[in-house]
């Protein structure tokens, strides 16, 4: 069964959401997805994800929240 963990970074000051995301990825099982919620595209995070072998896709909700879905590439 594929699960999903959520980090809601919308009330956090950068780079706290990125720190929590990178820490959560350390224990993310293969096949499981991490969902990061923010009010902006975390462009610097994308480079770090690619560097560490993670794939991501993102989309913006109507309320402006950006959903970033991350899992092992």
């Amino acid at each position: 069964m594929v699960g999903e963990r959520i980090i809601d970074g919308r009330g956090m000051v950068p780079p706290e959401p990125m720190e929590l995301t990178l820490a959560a990825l350390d224990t993310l099982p293969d096949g499981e997805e991490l969902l990061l919620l923010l009010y902006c595209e975390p462009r610097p995070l994308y480079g770090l994800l690619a560097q560490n072998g993670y794939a991501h896709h993102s989309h913006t909700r109507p309320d402006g929240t950006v959903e970033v879905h991350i899992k092992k590439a």
Partner: protein
Amino acid sequence: MQPGLSFEQAPPISVPFRFFLTAPVFGIAAGLLLLWQGPEALISRWTSTALALTHLLAVGFMLQAMCGALLQMLPVAAGANIWQPRRVTHLTHAGLTIGTLLLVAGFLDGQPLLFQIAVPFMTVSLGAFALIVLIALFRTPAQGPTIIALRIAVFGLIVTISLGATLAATFGWQLALPLIELTHVHAAWGLGGWGLLLLAGVAYLVVPMFQLTPPYPVWLTRSFSVALFFLLTAWSITWLPLERPAGVQAALACAAALLVVIFPAVTLRLQGQRRRKITEPTLLFWRVAMICFIAAVLVVIAQQLIAAVDAYDGLPFLLGALLMVGVFMPVISGMLYKIVPFLNWLHLQRIGKPGLVVPNMRQMIAEPRMMMQFRLHLAALVLLLGATLWTPLVYPGGLALIASCVWLEWNLIVGARNFARFSRELETRLAAEQAAA
């Protein structure tokens, strides 16, 4: 990966750092010039001292820090990749540093040769920077109000550079051009078309992000930069020697002033609505800047409507102190205290690997150090504003400005040294882990 979002294409950390570490040195030079010339600096905006002082702050401090931040911010935050970032960095940094020295020496010494060297040197280096950044901003897949504001801002920089080069050429080659008219338009595009629009474009992104405020209202972000561009253009045309109805120039100046005052008013309101009521140095720097911004706009409106205000001798120094020491220097200082620790953290992440804990952003520059610089800068601002009423205050004002810039420089050096120390520690830990494995 999405196109144009590669962190790998971001320039090395030394790129922005060299700009950031150079900027306060020109702030110190401005303070020293104030001490050297004393009340002479306040007589008129047209004296060699006033022109040198203006360019030490506007080009030496402000433009230096702005270019460094933009070169780093464009690839990382806006997905706009700069062509040949290392070469552009060397050229721009040299253009700004040597160019400011040549300009200031030219103003103080009056030697046409200094302007004859400064004009081609600064036009090529800064012009190339502006064009390359503008192309990157048009090629990025990213969209939104920040990108639109930045495009117009960089166009404003090109106008400012062109007019500045023309003005400097009149000193270098004794050309007969309308100096006063050109200077008004040059200053308006430099502070409004470039400085303010860059500030607004960056604010749309960083104020909600770092100060946890609600986003800027869409009606503002959609129309502000475009409306200011058209008003500035129309106002600039009124300086041409053409027939026009009386009062058009003052009316356009008042309209532009009323438009721009919306930005600091909305920013202050958003800061009042922030989700975490934490008072930290960057917030305080921004608040002071927005209050000074509103004060400067009120002065400009009074200048247009009341003849006695327009005739007041201290007015140019008052406006210069409000806008440069009161608005742009605090905003830049506040932003540097976010940018430098964030860049440190980000570049340390690149060295590390999953599971290897990177030092926290707060460990890069201690907050009490930033607060100390805030207090020094506030003292400089109050004293320099006071100097428009009682000129001897220019001496303690100049001293406080030097102290503020020395403190800022030292804080940035601490940030750079901490980056070097933490990267050495990370590399050692990484090597030890690899050896153990």
